[in-house]
């Protein structure tokens, strides 16, 4: 079965640079979520989109923005990167409109900021 696809899988950036992370949800899933997991930490919710509209917002820095496109893929844009942004970034998808509450996670993008 198709899973959530994230790209790139690994990314190295320098401080103050920008990064764009992409997420392709499971086909026919209408909801995308972004989570950040720091080293040794539990995943923290950043932002979610339902039917291409922002639905919920967590502890996402103002330097980050995200959107969901017409084909339901989503991008997380990160600017003015800081050392503390080094983390594993997960995208998850679900079919909320279909009454499915389970969130399926992608393999993550490991971001290292030097």
């Amino acid at each position, binding site marked *: 079965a198709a899973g959530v696809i994230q790209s790139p899988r690994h990314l190295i950036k320098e401080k103050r640079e920008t990064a764009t992370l992409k997420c392709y949800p499971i086909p026919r899933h209408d*909801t995308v979520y972004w989570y950040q997991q720091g080293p040794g930490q*539990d*995943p923290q919710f950043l932002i979610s989109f339902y039917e291409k509209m922002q*639905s919920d917002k*967590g502890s996402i820095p103002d330097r980050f923005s995200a959107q969901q496109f017409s084909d339901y893929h989503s991008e997380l844009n990160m600017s003015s990167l800081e050392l503390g942004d080094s983390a594993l970034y997960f995208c*998850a998808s679900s079919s909320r409109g279909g009454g499915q*509450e389970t969130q399926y996670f992608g393999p993550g993008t490991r971001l290292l900021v030097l």
Partner: protein
Amino acid sequence: SQQGEEDPQALSIQEGENATMNCSYKTSINNLQWYRQNSGRGLVHLILIRSNEREKHSGRLRVTLDTSKKSSSLLITASRAADTASYFCATDPAWDGTASKLTFGTGTRLQVTL
């Protein structure tokens, strides 16, 4: 803010033994989900239990939910070395028809030795 606390933080058992992990949370939930994460890898969904359910089984997994105590437990029976991973509980608040977010617990690191 962190919703869940997991207990124990680390657990080491021998193959064939049972492993029990506990999770406590603070607010009202729609459902509670358990995930497994191998070191630095993606989150794999294990099981979802709704707020009106008390117990659920899936293969060697048994999950209980006590909403009056705001707690859940995950039991893995007849453990295998391949079960070695970190286990997270995640709570999903009441759903109003739009996307929601998962709040993760601190995780239990399970080590199964031969």
